[in-house]
């Protein structure tokens, strides 16, 4: 695929330039090939001069035709519509002229113009795509040429027809014409034309994918072209050859051709072909994955093509650049280039490029997750592919393939999308669910509290009523007592009256609302009133009269009776009597009242008792108490549910079942859940009383068919209630419950969103009882509570899952972040390396000098020592004893001298020495006083060293002795110089090493600020010592923890920046100061360079920002500064005015 695109580019390029040439050659008898920036200027000039000629009258037809033809050839560049009218004018003139039977010379000229015009019109038709018309005109043109027998023009016309066929895709016909043209050219022998024809054939072979043949033709074309000296074409052919060779795999050779072509094109300034070379190199580097080089070449070619407005080229360069950027992962840039290429290609109607652009864009959009645009591009890509590929099968196969790819991708995308939405929803939902749960629980607590409060108000009211009733009763009893007493008194007082009024009295008793009974001494009932009968559910007195009262007693009362009777028999009143009777309906009735004996004639004659039935009152009271404690239990359970952790919930449920059961006398309590999908209900929790078998195992999966009744009721939100199993009419239900020994049961649905998700049930085995409305209300609340609990569990589980998913996502994100960080670190490290290399390059001149000087000194020193040794051993050294020599050596060792004492100084010293010698020697002047004196000065003796001087002068060979001493001194001084110089050289190398040294191991360590900055100044020593007034005031005691290499980079960037800023001025000042205050260290670098404009000061630390684009620097320097500062927890401020620019760095240490 790639090679196709490439070779196509090539064919196209060549054809493009060929085509121009073809027509221009035709239009002018002497070809003018116009390139580069002078193009329009030249054209304008031509046009102006031609217009000038037309303006003149009386010019010959031939000339006029020639001018019109020329104009048509020039103006078409600006406006192609001018071509046909102008050419028609030429044809008109030519036809008129030919009609007049002109002389042969003019005829030939006219015919040439005529055919030229035809050719140019053909060109217009070609650009419009009207190929038949085009060929028609070309054939006409050819015919005329054949008439005139102008072989060169015939060849060109044949060539042009071939070109049209090539454009049409009819390669064989094109080849035929090209070869014909070649034959004619060969006859004619013009090397340039032969070369061009060969070139055309070669490009055709290349187009029809016969690279070997193409190469052969290119080579022979090159041969002819080189002979012709047409550099432009030579370059084009070399580029084509290079491309073919590259495809054959010989990269080095191909590159040689490419660079050769580029060089030629640069020399002749053929911008279009330069851009072709650049894009070829760009594509080559892209294929080698040398992305930076690829970017540079491609970018340059694109810029050039933009300047030329070479649209096809722009499309190709832009898409190649897009590929490069895509590989570099710079999606935004890639997209922009690809879009530019696409739009240009679409304007041109250039399917191959549209295809490639669409492909790239699809990939980019996919990377951006923009599946809609990706699909759009994919479609465009396929469309273009269709138009490009002829083979139907291959086309559909690719269509299928890309469709499949797209669908897979789409599916993945959708899945990804769904997942994202799900995760998002989940997050929202879990949040909501927790909130909901809280609201529910809170509202439930509130509800419970309200219910409880309402209940307790009711209870209080009932209690109040009860008390009131009690009081009423007591009052009544009291009243009655007094009445009775009164009456008894009356009876006593007027016995006769009693007899009389006995009947009235018994009426009164009968009608009393108090239960009144009378017993004979044996305890048999003698009288009961109507109230007694009513309360005991008897109809007539006969049913009970004569029966022993104990028959109506329950066990407890029976025992108490045994205590009460003796009291009565002794004639005592028994007050506050409470007893339980059993009514006709065998229900227990609680009575409260008093009894008194009946004494007749002083002996016990039975008893009389007055009771109130307090059964109902007691029952109400008991119920109220029960409800209160039930509520208490519920409240406790609620609190536990809210507080319990999720792991404890099952225990809490079981405990709550136990508590409710105990309270409501249930022997079994259970929780079931409905599973509507599988149509089963399963027991989840159970409590059973002692001796009751557990059903936990057997009821794990009960089909719905077994519990139709419950299911029906529960789904409607209703209770299932059987207060008395024995009264169940439905046989099936009865059988089931009866078999288990259940006497009463109740089950309450658990409703969630108006749907029954399960139920709670209570079975009573030992007693029968109905649940009161209050109890049922509480159980309902309890069931809802369980619903909430189950929801809470579900939510918490979901939350956990979501949490886990999130954690996983986080983990992968962290991993990505880590990877990216690592990548960035690697990048910044390599950027730092690069910056370092740039710095080294910049300071290399200084380094060279710093090394050169000491090395030179060392060399000279060596020469000098050589000289000294020579003269030493050729001198008088052998005349001295070992002792003497060692004395000399000793002296020299102890008295190091400076060798560069000026002559004036020496002169002064010598006169002093001479004076001294003359005085001290007093006549014993040695033979060569002047020379000795000279040597003494040279050996740096001073008159104060009397002893030593006289010792030396006492020697027979004092002069030679001093000579040797002086020579040795000089040798020593040279050695010292060599030593110092090599130290200096080593210092330079060490500074460099410190700068270059690998920094893969980055560890913080104690940094001495002065030393660290000094190293940097050492690197820049050359420039600073030479030009800069340096003020370096940093206290050597300042130290802090940091990365030394990075700090080195920091200082060197700031110093370098400052030096560069000052490079254009004479007076250069660099100041470095440091100040430590508490935990802050302030380091100031100031220079007197030009003011940094305010608008730049803000962006100076951005990456790649540089104002010295042409000079040096990648613009990374100050951004490195920023990174280093970040790593050291430091800040930088730039203050710049006309006199000073300050970089103030503040470390927190």
């Amino acid at each position, binding site marked *: 695929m790639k090679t196709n695109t490439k070779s196509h580019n090539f064919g196209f390029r060549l054809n493009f330039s060929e085509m121009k040439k073809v027509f221009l050659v035709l239009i002018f008898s002497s070809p003018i090939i116009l390139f580069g920036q002078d193009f329009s200027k030249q054209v304008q000039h031509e046009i102006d001069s031609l217009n000038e000629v037309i303006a003149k009258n009386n010019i010959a037809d031939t000339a006029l035709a020639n001018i019109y033809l020329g104009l048509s050839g020039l103006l078409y560049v600006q406006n192609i519509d001018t071509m046909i009218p102008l050419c028609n004018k030429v044809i008109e003139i030519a036809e008129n002229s030919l009609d007049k039977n002109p002389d042969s010379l003019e005829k030939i000229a006219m015919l040439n113009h005529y055919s030229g015009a035809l050719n140019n019109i053909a060109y217009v038709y070609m650009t419009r795509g009207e190929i038949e018309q085009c060929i028609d005109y070309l054939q006409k043109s050819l015919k005329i040429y054949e008439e005139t027998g102008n072989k060169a023009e015939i060849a060109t016309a044949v060539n042009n027809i071939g070109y049209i066929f090539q454009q049409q895709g009819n390669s064989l016909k094109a080849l035929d014409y090209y070869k014909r043209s070649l034959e004619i050219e060969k006859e004619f022998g013009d090397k340039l034309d032969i070369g061009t024809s060969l070139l055309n054939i070669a490009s055709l072979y290349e187009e029809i994918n016969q690279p070997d043949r193409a190469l052969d033709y290119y080579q022979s074309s090159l041969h002819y072209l080189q002979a012709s000296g047409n550099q432009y074409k030579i370059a084009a052919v070399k580029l084509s050859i290079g491309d073919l060779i590259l495809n054959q795999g010989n990269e080095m050779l191909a590159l040689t051709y490419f660079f050769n072509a580029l060089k030629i094109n640069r020399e002749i300034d053929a911008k279009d072909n330069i851009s072709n070379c650049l894009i070829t190199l760009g594509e080559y580097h892209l294929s080698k994955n040398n992305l930076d080089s690829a970017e540079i070449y491609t970018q340059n070619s694109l810029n050039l093509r933009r300047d030329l407005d070479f649209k096809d080229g722009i499309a190709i360069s832009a898409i190649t650049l897009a590929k490069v950027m895509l590989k570099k992962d710079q999606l935004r840039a890639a997209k922009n280039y690809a879009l530019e290429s696409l739009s240009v290609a679409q304007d041109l109607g250039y399917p191959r490029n549209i295809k490639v652009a669409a492909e790239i864009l699809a990939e980019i959009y996919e990377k951006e997750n923009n599946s809609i645009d990706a699909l759009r591009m994919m479609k465009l890509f396929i469309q273009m592919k269709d138009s490009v590929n002829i083979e139907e099968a291959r086309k559909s196969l690719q269509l299928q393939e890309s469709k499949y790819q797209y669908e897979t991708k789409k599916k993945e995308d959708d899945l990804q999308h769904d997942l994202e939405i799900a995760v998002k929803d989940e997050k929202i939902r879990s949040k909501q669910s927790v909130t909901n749960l809280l609201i529910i629980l809170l509202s439930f607590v509130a509800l419970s509290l309200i219910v409880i409060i309402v209940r307790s108000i009711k209870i209080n009211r009932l209690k109040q009523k009860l008390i009131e009733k009690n009081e009423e009763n007591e009052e009544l009893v009291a009243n009655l007592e007094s009445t009775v007493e009164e009456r008894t008194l009356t009876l006593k007082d007027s016995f006769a009256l009693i007899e009389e009024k006995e009947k009235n009295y018994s009426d009164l008793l009968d009608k009393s609302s108090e239960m009144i009974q009378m017993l004979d001494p044996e305890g048999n009932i003698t009288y009961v009133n109507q109230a007694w009968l009513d309360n005991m559910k008897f109809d007539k007195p006969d049913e009970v009269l004569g029966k022993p009262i104990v028959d109506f007693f329950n066990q407890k009362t029976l025992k108490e009776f045994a205590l009460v009777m003796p009291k009565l028999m002794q004639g005592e009143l028994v007050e506050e009597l409470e007893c339980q009777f059993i009514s006709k309906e065998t229900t227990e009735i609680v009575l409260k009242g008093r009894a008194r004996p009946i004494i007749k004639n002083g002996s016990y004659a039975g008893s009389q008792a007055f009771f109130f039935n307090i059964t109902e009152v007691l029952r109400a009271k008991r119920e109220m108490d029960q409800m209160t404690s039930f509520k208490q239990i519920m409240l406790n359970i609620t609190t536990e549910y809210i507080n319990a952790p999720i792991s404890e919930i099952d225990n809490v449920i079981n405990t709550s079942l136990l508590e409710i059961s105990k309270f409501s006398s249930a022997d079994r309590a259970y929780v079931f859940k409905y599973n509507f999908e599988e149509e089963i209900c399963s027991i989840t929790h159970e409590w059973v009383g002692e001796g009751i078998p557990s059903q936990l195992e057997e009821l794990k999966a009960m089909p719905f068919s077994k519990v139709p009744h419950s299911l029906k009721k529960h789904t409607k939100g209703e209770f299932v209630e059987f207060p008395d199993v024995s009264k169940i009419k439905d046989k099936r239900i009865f059988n089931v419950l009866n078999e288990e020994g259940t006497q009463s049961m109740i089950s309450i649905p658990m409703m969630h969103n108006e749907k029954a998700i399960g139920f709670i049930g209570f079975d009573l085995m030992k007693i029968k009882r109905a649940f009161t409305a209050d109890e049922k209300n509480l159980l309902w609340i309890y069931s809802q509570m369980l619903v909430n609990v189950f929801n809470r569990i579900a939510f918490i589980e979901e939350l956990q899952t979501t949490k886990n998913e999130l954690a996983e996502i986080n983990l992968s994100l962290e991993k990505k972040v880590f990877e990216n960080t690592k990548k960035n670190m690697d990048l910044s490290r390599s950027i730092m390396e690069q910056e370092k290399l740039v710095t080294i390059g910049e300071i290399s001149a200084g380094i060279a000098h710093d090394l050169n000087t000491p090395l030179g*000194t060392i060399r000279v020193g060596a020469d000098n020592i050589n000289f000294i040794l020579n003269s030493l051993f050729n001198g008088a050294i052998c005349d001295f004893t070992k002792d003497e020599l060692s004395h000399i050596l000793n002296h020299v060792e102890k008295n190091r001298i400076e060798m560069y004492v000026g002559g004036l100084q020496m002169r002064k010293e010598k006169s002093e020495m001479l004076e001294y010698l003359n005085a001290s020697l007093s006549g014993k002047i040695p033979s060569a006083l002047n020379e000795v004196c000279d040597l003494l000065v040279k050996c740096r003796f001073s008159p104060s060293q009397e002893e030593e001087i006289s010792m030396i002068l006492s020697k027979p060979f004092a002069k030679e002795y001093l000579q040797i001493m002086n020579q040795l001194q000089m040798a020593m001084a040279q050695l010292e*110089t060599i030593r110092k110089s090599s130290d200096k050289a080593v210092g330079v190398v060490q500074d460099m090493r410190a700068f270059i040294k690998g920094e893969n191991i980055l560890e913080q360590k104690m940094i001495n600020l002065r030393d660290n900055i000094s190293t940097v100044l050492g690197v820049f020593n050359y420039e600073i010592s030479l030009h800069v007034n340096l003020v370096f005031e940093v206290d050597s005691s300042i130290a802090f923890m940091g990365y030394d290499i990075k700090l080195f980079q920091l200082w060197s960037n700031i110093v370098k920046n400052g030096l560069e800023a000052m490079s254009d001025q004479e007076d250069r000042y660099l100041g470095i100061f440091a100040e430590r205050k508490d935990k802050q260290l302030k380091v100031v670098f100031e220079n007197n360079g030009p003011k940094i404009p305010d608008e730049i000061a803000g962006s100076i630390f951005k990456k790649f920002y540089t104002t010295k684009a042409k000079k040096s620097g990648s613009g990374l320097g100050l951004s490195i500064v920023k990174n280093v500062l970040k790593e050291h927890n430091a800040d930088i401020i730039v203050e710049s005015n006309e006199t000073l620019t300050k970089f103030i760095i503040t470390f927190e240490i």
Partner: protein
Amino acid sequence: MSDMKCAVVCVDDDPYILQMLGFQLSKIMDQSHTLIEYFTDPRQALENIDLLIDERIDVMFVMVDYQMPKMTGAELIRKLKEKHQYLKCIMLSGQANRSSVDSLKEENLLEEFIEKPWDEDELFDTLRPLITSRT
């Protein structure tokens, strides 16, 4: 001191260079007639050259290092030539300062240029004509 007729002056901020140079110069100079003066500070050199000329001592030539703090060799030479038009100046320098050396030469301010590091024979070849022309 009347026998001292001539002098040569060497200026370089590096004492070791002076030491080397001095040693080499002493090989071809007749020190009984010629003073060899060394200065590490160009300003001091300026003063002392004035002094020598005042004493009517013929300064044969001045050897100046290009690269010095406070004042470059080029500046020093310009200043010397301002005062003493016929003073012969020789520049010692590394490759790096070729352009300013060239501009000095173009202005006829510089007799000779010796590249650092120098070869002794070359040094002598350059200096000999300047010496012999005096004696």
